[in-house]
């Protein structure tokens, strides 16, 4: 079972109260972009075994989107943070590094 704390309302929400939204921090390529850029924006996903940044929506709670950093292999949650940021905040990165010294963002 996955428990994510919604940064908007503070509830440690259980997985069934949430809806997954796929990979976080995607950069959108729209009209005017090259075919390759658009294809990678549309289809290419990291799908790592390990640290992953994801979008989640607190569907059955406050209804807001937020982002989460977790390990796809162990389900360990490193933290959740508001969705209005272009990259993971430093404290989340620090927490991941403390748990996964070999990991580097990028």
């Amino acid at each position, binding site marked *: 079972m996955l428990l994510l704390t919604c940064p*908007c*309302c*503070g*509830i440690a*929400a*259980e997985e*069934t*109260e949430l809806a997954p939204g796929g990979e976080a921090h995607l950069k959108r390529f729209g009209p005017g972009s090259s075919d390759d850029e658009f294809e990678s924006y549309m289809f290419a996903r990291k799908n790592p075994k390990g640290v992953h940044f994801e979008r989640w929506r607190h*569907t*059955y*709670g*406050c*209804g*807001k989107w937020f982002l989460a950093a977790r390990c796809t292999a162990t389900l360990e949650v490193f933290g959740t943070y508001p969705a209005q940021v272009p990259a993971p905040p430093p404290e989340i990165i620090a927490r991941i590094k403390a748990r996964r010294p070999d990991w580097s963002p990028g």
Partner: protein
Amino acid sequence: MSDPVSALGHAAFDGFARIREIGPLGMITLRARADLPALPAAVAAATGLGLPAVRRIVTAGDRSIGWMSPDEWLIVLPYAEVAQTQARLAEALHGQHHLAVDVSDARAVFRIEGARAGDVLMKLSPVDQARLEPGELRRTRAAQVACALWRDGDGYTLVCFRSVAGYVMGLLTHSAQPGSEISPA
């Protein structure tokens, strides 16, 4: 004017807790940015209540206002006072971006009462009842549908969409069957 009717005509069930469908109850959904300067004064003028903190519901007499999300509040009040309260909100927030909608007839309201009322909800929602604080409004799900609940007096008040009132009554009835208590006597 036609008479308002509650979703299930005051259906009730007596199990190890008492389930009652109550209503009609006046409800206004208020949406606005939380930092709108005129908001606290407008809500106070319309309802006599202050804005609740995150995930809280404040009650005075037969009126309540609950925090639903960072930009949404639910005002609960007597059915007959909805139009008047809406008008007051519209007046106080005139020209400011907001939404105050009468959702009274779009919702069904249930009361779950008794010493083991929490047991009924434990089976239906992923909510740790022991950590539900007094005055906390918890939005969650009841089995497969969205709901909001809070502790009130010796029981709980549960609000759900009217279209699923029959389903929720079925859930609560089944969950409150005598002999299916969870907590020890």
